[in-house]
């Protein structure tokens, strides 16, 4: 049969005489397939109420990132915040806070880097991360930040161990330069701490993973706040209350900032792209994270000067930060696995641009 414009003028052909193997690639958002219950008849469809995908298969691929990456996001934040606390503690002469924060920074960054390497497809090639400096790659920028931070934290730790062991390191006449080196290492680490905590948000946002990409404007603030409350919380656990007032303040500021940033993020995001943050396992983790953040922040604010309350609040904040990172990571991976999260927001923004009169930037054209 030919296809012509007169087709529409023909009388309708009888239904049912044809053996129809209609297999629906067009499906309702709830997964129901259109078509007659017995498969022999066609049932009317309402195209607007459906979204189309290719057999429900994902459009984008999820990052092959396991819980190691969530651990790194958490540990990188703890390290970054601890680096700042160590520098502040040194400049304001809080020796215990300084020691504990330095050790926390190097331990967290060391464990985090190990987790990163373990998650590589080819762990033995981890040094290729420093093969080039590439500003378009958040992973490359982050690798350099991580390397720089680790170097600074390493030097500070060596000097701290030297102090702890009664200055027994055989440094000879170099010892008189130590104060300068120490301040330099502390300030260097403190300066790279915030970038270390913030770049991971860009790393996630600079992907085609719908939930991460759509959270791009607020995710750096969420991650930085999470780093503040986690590092403050860790100091509250490890250090006697006599020296932790700044850590408590940092933790409270972090908790408040995270609650605000998360709320703003949820409000601004495309409702469909934000859905994985609210449902399933990631949704549960993020709800717990919010409660633990509020509880820990409140505890630090009200009872942080008591050792017991400080430890409990600190642990609660650490757990909150870990849950935030794992929740955001998993929500993104879930969003990549379901074509709906890719297709629906994209169709909506394309339609919005067309409605606004912008018709020249579509990937689909007829000429």
């Amino acid at each position: 049969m030919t296809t012509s414009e007169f087709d529409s003028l023909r009388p309708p052909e009888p239904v049912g005489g044809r053996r129809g193997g209609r297999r629906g690639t067009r499906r309702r958002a709830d997964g129901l397939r259109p078509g007659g219950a017995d498969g022999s008849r066609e049932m009317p469809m309402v195209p607007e109420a459906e979204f189309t995908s290719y057999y429900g298969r994902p459009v984008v691929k999820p990052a092959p990132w396991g819980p190691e990456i969530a651990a790194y996001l958490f540990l990188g934040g703890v390290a970054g915040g601890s680096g700042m606390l160590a520098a502040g503690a040194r400049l304001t002469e809080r020796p215990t806070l300084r020691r504990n924060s330095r050790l926390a920074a190097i331990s967290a960054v060391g464990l985090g880097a190990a987790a990163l390497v373990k998650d590589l497809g080819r762990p033995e090639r981890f040094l290729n991360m420093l093969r080039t400096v590439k500003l378009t790659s958040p992973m490359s920028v982050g690798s350099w930040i991580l390397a720089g931070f680790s170097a600074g934290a390493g030097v500070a730790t060596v000097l701290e161990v030297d102090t702890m062991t009664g200055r027994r390191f055989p440094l000879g006449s170099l010892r008189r330069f130590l104060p300068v080196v120490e301040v330099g290492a502390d300030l260097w680490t403190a300066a790279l701490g915030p970038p270390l905590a913030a770049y991971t948000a860009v790393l996630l946002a600079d992907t085609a993973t719908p939930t991460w990409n759509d959270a791009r404007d607020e995710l750096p603030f969420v991650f930085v706040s999470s780093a503040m409350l986690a590092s403050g919380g860790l100091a509250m656990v490890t250090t006697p209350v006599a020296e932790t007032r700044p850590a408590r303040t940092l933790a409270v500021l972090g908790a408040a900032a995270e609650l605000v940033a998360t709320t703003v993020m949820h409000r601004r995001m495309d409702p469909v792209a934000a859905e994985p943050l609210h449902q399933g396992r990631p949704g549960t983790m993020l709800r717990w994270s919010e409660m633990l953040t509020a509880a820990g922040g409140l505890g630090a604010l009200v009872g942080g000067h008591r050792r017991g309350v400080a430890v409990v609040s600190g642990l609660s904040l650490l757990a909150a930060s870990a849950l935030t990172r794992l929740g955001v990571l998993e929500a993104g991976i879930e969003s990549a696995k379901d074509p709906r999260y890719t297709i629906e927001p994209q169709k909506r923004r394309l339609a919005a641009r067309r409605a606004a009169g912008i018709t020249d930037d579509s990937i689909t054209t007829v000429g």
Partner: protein
Amino acid sequence: MGQLSGPTDPTLDANWANPQHRKGFFTDTSICIGCKACEVACKEWNHNPRDGDLELLGSSYDNTGALGASTWRHVAFIEQGAERIESARESGRALVSLGMPGVRGAGPTDPLPDESDMRPNTGPPDTAEFRWLMSSDVCKHCTHAGCLDVCPTGALFRTEYGTVVVQDDVCNGCGTCVAGCPFGVIERRDDGMASANTRHTAESAEVPNVGVAQKCTLCYDRLVDGQTPACAQTCPTTSIKFGDHDDLVTQARERVRELHAQGMTEARLYGANDLDGVGGTGSVFLLLDEPEVYGLPPDPRVPTADLPRMFNRAGIAAVGMIAAAAASFLTGRRR
């Protein structure tokens, strides 16, 4: 570093001393017969191992599933009934009425222009009742490639032909490119040992490049020798065309015009627009329905286009963190 979005010549952006004409594919799905010869030729030439467990996927004749680390050509099969055809036809017409240039006589009420319709129909068999869409998907070799932008090691690079290729011996399998691709093309190759299928144990020893990101190279090894990529060479219906990108886009536009003149207003191009979110693609497709029907994103955008803004936001957040720490140490009683 070239520009992050918008129309550009990617080969020049990559500072090649000897830039060649940008190469690409034009995949005309209106003449694809779904023979999958392209899938086979690609696997053979590139020594790609088997994907999956040879299971039937229950999606028409498509048992390949999707593009992946070991599948660089994937033929999609879509079965559609009358009303779906009509809605595809309508969405194609809607594109025309948006003021897209270059199509004549294809509006909904325009009469067909000449008497060519009176001649016997020598086109592909088509009825108004049902149809079978077949489309061979492949890496898009984007002008602004998300995978290439985010690769931290430099393993992914822009060739002198404007294509995007992974260096197997440099990639450390970080997986960032997998998330960076707006089309879900590139993937990290696993060792194939996830399943209990015993056939794997014999084959897995031969799997090359395990743990490394893999995707279509547009047969870079053949291009440097002046050869046609394996899939295009093997395609029996010339549905897959290979050549200079600019020529292919011209050819693709002519083909759409031709199909619209025949009343197939569902025909449309995918990736032929320099102004789209990825700056146009090296692999251009002629589709007969909305892109998402074929598993393609309807409005892809290279994530890196927003990277300056993202780094900016992260910078503000980092400064805020420093300010918060400074405030923590400077305020309150000394205790």
